[in-house]
């Protein structure tokens, strides 16, 4: 396998010349191995064990960070085996070669999921990690370094984590060398990175600006015995990421009969939680007022008054494609009363990512999807799980996209 990428093998790059390049994992020497090493089979046992050992380390060191813990939980051996069992063609699937990941700067642990997916698919990985200093990033990178210097030395060439400033020539160089490029970070970043060409056979996964919605059945909510948990789940879907993640619902659609009672209770419980856990900064309060007046100046809406600025609720009486232009964050909810699930259709264009639901049965949702086949919505998840990472993300199967299948007749 090693000889297959002949052109690459001949190239020895001297990264010493790039003074703006900082290795967090790897080195100038190792990255040259990264560029030439043979890819691995997808879900190789070595990688599964490495991730399991990583999980053990960071679950201890990072126990104070819920995002580190959820990554640690995700990459346990048993969880990975479960993922593995979903693939039936692993016997002839190997990594594409070099995966170049560009992680977003404001979701600290995102880079780790991206890198784990690249590794599981069988690639050598170059990951540009956030330039900002996050304790979570340090914990994970330190653990990776310990493992690569110790019992997982064999995997050393497969992992390089780097920092370099935006606008550096390095994006161009890594792009010209990689076999897959993974860009997290939205439309503007994608446009910027796409100025750097890829090899003719290289592929690209882009995570563009997306938005999400939630559908709640009022009657199911009222009869639910676990309303506190629902509040926590919804909080985690929204406030935990300042309601600014692509997965955070911006529009809440209510179904069912007893909407008024359900809403009253739902928002009151959420308010108690937000009051206790969320820090609303003055600029966020001003920005929500801006978002409110902006939508009000364009459309027929009503503010549903609350006791303070923690939760901003805006009632609309129409869902259409323009609505999402008025989305806000930090607890800014556009609400709509629907009679039928199909009313959400105008929101389900290609920019719509996740549908979070409560109290709907799968059949109901399935029927809607296969009857209308909207261009958007790549994930349908129960309330509270919108941020849970999965190897199928944003409509991409990361394992299949980052590996190739060999036909052997």
């Amino acid at each position, binding site marked *: 396998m090693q000889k297959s990428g002949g052109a690459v093998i001949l190239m020895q790059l001297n990264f010493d010349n790039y003074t703006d390049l900082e290795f967090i994992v790897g080195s100038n020497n190792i990255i040259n191995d990264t560029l030439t090493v043979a890819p691995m089979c997808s879900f190789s046992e070595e990688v599964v064990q490495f991730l399991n050992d990583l999980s053990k380390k960071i679950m201890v060191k990072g126990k104070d960070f819920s995002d580190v813990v959820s990554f640690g939980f995700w990459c346990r051996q048993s969880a990975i085996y479960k993922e593995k069992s979903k693939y039936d063609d692993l016997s002839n699937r190997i990594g594409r070669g070099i995966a170049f990941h560009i992680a977003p700067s404001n979701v600290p642990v995102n880079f780790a999921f991206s890198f784990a997916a690249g590794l599981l698919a069988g690639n050598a990985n170059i990951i540009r990690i956030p330039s900002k200093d996050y304790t979570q990033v340090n914990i994970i990178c330190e653990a990776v370094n310990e493992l690569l210097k110790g019992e997982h030395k064999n995997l050393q060439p497969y992992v390089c984590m780097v920092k370099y400033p935006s606008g550096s020539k390095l994006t161009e160089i890594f792009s010209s060398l990689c076999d897959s490029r993974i860009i997290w*970070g939205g439309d503007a970043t994608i446009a*910027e990175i796409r100025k750097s060409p890829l090899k003719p056979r290289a592929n690209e996964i882009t995570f563009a600006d997306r938005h999400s919605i939630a559908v709640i059945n009022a009657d199911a909510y009222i009869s639910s015995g676990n309303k506190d948990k629902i509040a926590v789940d919804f909080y985690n879907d929204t406030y935990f990421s300042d309601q*600014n*993640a692509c997965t955070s619902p911006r529009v809440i659609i209510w179904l069912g009969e007893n909407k008024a009672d359900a809403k009253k209770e739902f928002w009151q419980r959420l308010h108690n939680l937000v009051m206790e856990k969320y820090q609303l900064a*003055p600029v966020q309060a001003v920005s929500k007022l801006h978002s409110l007046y902006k939508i009000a100046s364009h459309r027929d809406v009503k503010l549903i008054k609350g006791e303070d600025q923690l939760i901003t609720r805006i009632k609309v009486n129409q869902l259409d494609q323009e609505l999402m232009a008025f989305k806000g964050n930090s607890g800014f909810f556009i609400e709509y009363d629907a009679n039928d699930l199909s009313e959400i259709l105008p929101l389900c264009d290609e920019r719509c990512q996740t549908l979070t639901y409560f109290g709907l049965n799968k059949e109901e949702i399935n029927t809607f999807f296969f009857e209308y086949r909207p261009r958007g919505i790549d994930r349908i998840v129960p309330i509270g799980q919108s941020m849970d990472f999965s190897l199928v993300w944003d409509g991409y199967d990361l394992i299949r996209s980052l590996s190739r299948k060999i036909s052997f007749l």
Partner: protein
Amino acid sequence: MINYDDILNIEPFSLDKEKKEQLLTDRLKQLTIMHYQKSIEYKRILDAIDFNPDGIKSYYDIPFLPVSLYKELDLISIDKSEIFKVMTSSGTTGQAVSKIYLDKVTASNQQKTLVKIVSSFTGAARLPMLIIDSPSVIKDRNMFSARGAGILGFSIFGSDKIYALNDNMEIDLKAIETFLEKHQGKKILLFGFTFMIWQHFYKELLKLKHRIDLSNGILIHGGGWKKLINEAVSPDEFKNRLTDICGLHRIHDYYGMVEQTGCIYMECEYGHLHASIFSDVITRRHMDFSICSFGEPGIIQVVSMLPESYPGHSLLTEDEGVILGEDDCLCGRKGKYFKINGRLKNAEIRGCSDTYAVKF
């Protein structure tokens, strides 16, 4: 509506709390009703929050629009044919700028109000004026930048005007010295933007071997402290250093914004910013926008009796400030006096994409 010309006849710092509140409530209620009728966007905004302008009991009740809204919306209460000029904020390249639409009446009232406020500090007579900026700032008159508008606005206080900096923002010492010689012994007005004065005037004067004498000068400056805070220069130090280098000791900062041009807040001899009768400041708590007590820092809301051509008579700024007192400043001026703490801190919002894109 109360005629603004009548209001203009009142001395800017002469009304006590009760009288001022009555005047502000009357006029601002009328403005709210008028904008509600004339601006469809403004009407929709008020309708969305179920606000009835006829029910206004106090100007404290009137909704406040965040100044950032003027960057995204064309808020206007006149027919397009009546637009006399469009003021814009000085945004850096690529940033959205505020657009403020003025008709002749509002533009003229802005100018008259400015005259009233400033001349209560400088005296009624026009003075020889040294503008501490470059003449190029006002050359493009089609789009008024905040800096250009400030200079043009203040120019009416000058009888004989020169610019202290050339087109390359270099100090024009020869012109300054000729000017000072010509007006020896007379009171001189100096005007400029705080950071420009520090960067291109004070720092250049420091380099000179001989000193120029501006002890007869009265300096009015504005534009904010953001850049000087970065250089760790406090308002006191700014004043002291200028006094040391050129004898200037009458120095007045002012607070104001392009969205409410004309109604500026001048700093008195005791270092306090003062609200005139033409406008007011209210500080609000971000959690529920309730009104702060005196001494309690909050988000600054400004109201102004001027804006007739656009619904900008009640605005929420992006600044934090503290009301220090009302009607009892040692300088003798009536009305609220306050200080600005600076811009609201930019919170680091989480999320997947937005900030990364901006920083990339």
